[in-house]
C-alpha cells in the first residue's frame, strides 16, 4: 500500500494498531488463559455511563471512559469470585446495571446529544497524538505487568483459579480496563475484543507454550491490524470491521488447521465453514470520485444536496454521511478522510450535530476552509442555538445557502457567475417552497395543528408554520435513550386532553413506542418525518427541498386526517 502510507492519518492509524497489538497481544494471552474475555467485552461496553457523565459535566471523554471502566472492572473483579453464581453472571449483571445507569443519566439527567453514540464507535482513521500516547502507555503497562506478575498469573491459570481479591488479580483487571479503553479510540466498544481476544484465541489453537503463545499473538495481532488497515483502504470500509473480519477469518483457518492435524475435521471445521460463509457474504463500499473538478466535502446528506444543487457541475461534492447510514453510529471510511484531505472546502452542519467532523478535519491534515453552515444559518437567530436541525427551517436554509455559495466560489473561482446564478435560482425555489408550505399548512384549522413527534427534532419546522408540538416521545437524542413510564402516561393523557389526532414517527428510527402511544390514545400514526437525513436517492424526500415538501405533506395530511394535502412543488 505505497499510496496509503503517504497519508498521515493512515500512518497514525498503523502506528496505533501496532502499539495496541503489543498491549493486546501480551494481555490477550492472559485474558484467554484466565477466561476473562467476557470481562474485557463488558468493561468496554460499560464505559457508556462514563461517556455520558463526561459529556454532561464537560470533562474529557477518555477520563470518563477510564473512570467507568476501572469502576466497573473493579466491581466485577470483586464480585466475580463468588462460586455460587459464577463469574459470568456477575459480570453480565454489573454490565447491565452500568448501562442502565448510563441510560438514566442520558435520558433523564443530562438530555444528552447524539455525540455520545459517536464515542462508542472509535476509528483507526481518527487517531491523534493523545491516542498514540495512551496506546503506548497501555503497551508499556501490559508488558511491565506481564513481566512482573506473569509467573503468578500462569500458576493461577494452571490451577484454574478464578479472580479473587489478591493484588495480582486487581492489577490484571485494571490492566484489562486500561487496554480496553485504549482500544476504544481505535475500534470502538463493541469490537474492543477484536485485538484483545481474537488473536490470542487463534494462536492458542496452535501453541500451548506461554512464551511462544505471547510472541506469536503480538505478531498475529500486528499483522491482522495492518492487514485490516490495508483492506479498509482498498475496499473503503471502516478499519475496525475489516480487522474483525480478517481476525475471525484467520481464526477459522487456524481451527481448520488444528482440526486437520487432529484428524477430527467435523466439529470445528463445520463451525469454521459456517462462519466463513457468513463473512464472505459481506459486501464492499464505493470509493470517492475525483475527476479534476474542485472537490467540496459536506458532512450531512442535506448539506451535500444543497452544495450539489448550487455547485455542480463546476465542483464535485462528496457527502460523508450516506443516505443509508445512521448519523448516530457513523464510522468514517478511508475515502471520507481522503476526500477531506483533498477538498477545497469542507462544509459542516454544526451546532453539535456532526461533532466528529472536527476529528476528521484534524486527521486529514487539510488546510481547506471549514464552513460551519449551522452557525451561518442561525446567525442573528439569537437564543436558538440548541436545536441542531437548522435545515428544517427554510429561513435558516436560505442563510446557509449564502455561506455555501461563498465557499463554493472560493473553491472554484472560475465558475463564480454560474455558481451565483444557480444559488439565486435555488434560493428562489426555496422561498417559493416556504410560501407554499405556509399556505398549505394554514389550510389546516388552527385547533387541529397539534401533533406529537418521536424525537424533539422538528421544532424549527413546526414553529415556523404554527404547528403546536404537544409532546415528544423520546427524551434524548442518544440511540440508547428511553422514555419513562410516567412521562409517556402523562403524554397519553395530554394527547386525549388536547385532542391531538396524529403521532409522527421519524424515518430511520424504531417507531414502536410512537405507534403504541398512538394506538393507546386513539390517535393516528402519521407518515414518517425526515429530520436527520434525506430519504433514498430518487425518492420524494431524496433532496433537501423534497424533504421539506414531503414533511409538510405528511404533517398536513396527518393533522387534517387526510382533509388537506400539500402537493407543493419542490
Amino acid at each position, binding site marked *: 500500500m505505497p499510496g496509503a502510507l503517504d497519508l498521515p492519518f493512515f500512518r497514525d492509524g498503523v502506528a496505533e494498531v501496532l502499539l495496541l497489538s503489543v498491549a493486546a497481544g501480551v494481555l490477550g494471552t492472559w485474558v484467554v488463559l484466565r*477466561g476473562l*474475555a*467476557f470481562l474485557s*467485552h463488558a468493561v468496554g461496553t460499560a464505559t457508556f455511563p462514563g461517556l455520558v457523565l463526561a459529556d454532561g459535566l464537560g470533562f474529557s471523554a477518555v477520563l470518563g471512559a477510564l473512570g467507568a471502566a476501572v469502576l466497573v472492572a473493579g466491581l466485577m473483579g470483586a464480585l466475580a469470585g463468588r462460586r455460587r*453464581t459464577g463469574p*459470568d*453472571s456477575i459480570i*453480565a*449483571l454489573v454490565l*447491565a*446495571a452500568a*448501562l*442502565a445507569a448510563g*441510560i*438514566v443519566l442520558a435520558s*433523564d439527567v443530562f438530555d444528552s446529544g447524539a455525540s455520545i453514540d459517536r464515542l462508542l464507535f472509535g476509528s483507526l482513521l481518527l487517531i491523534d497524538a493523545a491516542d498514540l500516547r495512551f496506546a503506548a502507555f497501555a503497551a508499556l503497562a501490559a508488558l511491565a505487568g506481564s513481566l512482573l506478575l506473569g509467573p503468578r498469573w500462569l500458576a493461577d491459570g494452571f490451577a484454574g483459579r478464578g479472580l479473587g481479591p489478591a493484588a495480582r488479580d486487581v492489577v490484571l483487571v485494571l490492566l484489562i480496563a486500561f487496554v480496553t479503553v485504549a482500544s476504544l479510540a481505535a475500534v470502538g466498544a*463493541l*469490537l474492543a*475484543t*477484536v485485538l484483545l*481476544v*481474537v488473536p490470542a*484465541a487463534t494462536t492458542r*489453537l496452535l501453541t500451548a507454550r506461554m512464551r511462544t503463545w505471547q510472541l506469536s499473538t503480538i505478531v498475529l495481532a500486528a499483522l491482522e491490524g495492518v492487514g485490516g488497515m490495508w483492506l479498509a483502504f482498498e475496499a473503503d470500509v*471502516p478499519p*475496525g*470491521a*475489516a480487522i*474483525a*473480519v480478517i*481476525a*475471525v*477469518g484467520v*481464526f477459522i483457518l487456524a*481451527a481448520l488447521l488444528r482440526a486437520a492435524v487432529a484428524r477430527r475435521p467435523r466439529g*470445528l471445521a463445520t*463451525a469454521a465453514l459456517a*462462519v466463513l460463509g457468513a463473512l464472505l*457474504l*459481506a*459486501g464492499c*463500499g464505493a470509493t470517492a470520485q475525483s475527476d479534476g473538478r474542485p472537490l467540496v466535502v459536506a458532512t450531512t446528506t442535506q448539506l451535500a444536496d444543497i452544495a450539489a444543487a448550487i455547485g455542480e457541475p463546476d465542483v464535485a461534492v462528496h457527502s460523508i454521511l*450516506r*443516505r*443509508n447510514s445512521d448519523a448516530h453510529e457513523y*464510522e468514517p471510511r478511508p475515502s471520507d478522510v481522503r476526500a477531506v484531505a483533498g477538498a477545497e472546502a469542507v462544509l459542516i452542519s454544526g451546532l453539535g450535530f456532526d461533532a466528529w467532523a472536527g476529528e476528521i478535519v484534524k486527521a486529514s491534515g487539510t488546510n481547506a476552509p471549514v464552513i460551519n453552515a449551522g452557525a451561518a444559518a442561525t446567525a442573528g437567530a439569537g437564543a436558538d442555538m440548541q436545536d441542531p436541525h437548522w435545515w428544517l427551517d427554510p429561513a435558516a436554509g436560505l442563510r446557509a445557502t449564502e455561506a455555501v455559495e461563498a465557499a463554493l466560489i472560493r473553491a472554484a473561482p472560475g465558475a463564480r457567475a454560474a455558481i451565483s446564478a444557480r444559488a439565486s435560482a435555488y434560493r428562489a425555489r426555496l422561498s417559493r417552497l416556504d410560501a407554499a408550505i405556509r399556505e398549505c399548512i394554514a389550510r389546516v384549522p388552527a385547533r387541529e395543528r397539534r401533533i406529537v413527534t418521536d424525537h424533539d427534532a422538528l421544532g424549527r419546522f413546526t414553529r415556523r408554520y404554527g404547528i403546536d408540538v404537544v409532546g415528544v416521545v423520546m427524551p434524548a437524542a442518544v440511540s440508547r435513550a*428511553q*422514555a419513562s*413510564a*410516567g412521562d409517556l*402516561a402523562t403524554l397519553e393523557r395530554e394527547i386525549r386532553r388536547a385532542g391531538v389526532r396524529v403521532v409522527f414517527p421519524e424515518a*430511520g*428510527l*424504531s417507531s*414502536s*413506542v*410512537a*405507534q*403504541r402511544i398512538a394506538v*393507546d390514545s386513539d390517535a393516528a400514526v402519521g407518515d414518517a418525518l425526515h429530520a436527520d437525513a434525506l430519504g433514498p436517492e430518487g425518492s420524494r424526500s431524496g433532496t433537501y427541498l423534497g424533504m421539506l415538501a414531503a414533511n409538510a405533506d405528511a404533517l398536513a395530511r396527518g393533522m387534517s386526517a387526510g382533509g388537506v394535502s400539500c402537493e407543493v412543488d419542490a
Partner: protein
Amino acid sequence: MIGWITDPFGEPIVLRGAVELVLLGVLSGGLGCWIVLSGVSSTAESLSHGMLPGLVGAALLGIPLLLGGAVGLVVAAVAIALVQRSPLTPDVATSVVITGLLGAGVLLGLSPSAPAGLGSLLFGDLLGVSDLDLALAAALGVVVTLLLFLLHPTLLLTGFDRLNATALGRSPARLDLVLAVLLALATLVAVQALGTLLVVAMLVGPAATARLVSRRVAPMMLLAVAIAVVASVAGLAASYHANLAAGACVVLALAAAFCMTLAGRGIAHVVLARSAA
C-alpha cells in the same frame, strides 16, 4: 401505599409493559437458571449482537427482518457451541464468534441498499410492545416452560455431572445445542420488545439472585420466576413515579434485588454465627 403500586397500571401503556414483563419473567426466570448454572451468561449477553448481520442480510434480500434475525441468532448459537469444542473457554468462543458477526454486520450494512437504523432494533423499548410481541412472548413462554419441564431430569443430570453424562446415557453436546437454540429463541422474541440490555438482565439477574438462597434447582427456578416478575414490575412502577427511563429502571430493580439478597445473606450468616457461638 396500595395506590403507589396499583396507580401506574391504570395507564394502558404501563399495563402493557407490565404484562410483557410478567410473560417474559416466567420465560426467562426458568431458562435463566440453566444459563447461570451452565456458566453461559456471557453467551446470553453477547448473542443478541450476532443478530446484526442477520437483520442487514434480511433487509438486503427483502425477507422479513424477524426471519433474518432468527437465522443470525441460530448461526451465532451453533457457531459458539462448535467453537467450544476447542481448548477455548465458552466466553472466549462467544467473543470470537460475536466479533466476527459484528464485523460482518458492519460491512454488510455499508451496502448502498441497506436501510438505516437497523441497529436501533437492538434497543427495543419496553413501553412500545405490540400485540405481536405479547403473543410471541406468551407462545414462547409456553414452549420453553414445557421443554424445561420435560428436560428437567436430563438438564439436572448433565449440568451436575457433565463429564460422566455420556456414561449415564445423555449427550452433553446435544443438550448444549438445545439450550443454545432456546436461548436464541428467547433472545429473538425478547430483544424486539425489550432490547438487548433488558433481556440479559431478565435472564441472568433473577436466576443469579435465586441461586444465592437456593439448595435445589426446582425451587431456584420458581424463586427466579417470582423475582423476575416482582422486581421488574416494581421497577416499572418506579419508572412511572420517578419519571425515569423505563427499561433502565427495570434493570436497576433486578440488580437491586440481587444486591439486597447478597447483603441479606451476609447478615444472616453473621447472625447465625453469633447465635451459634
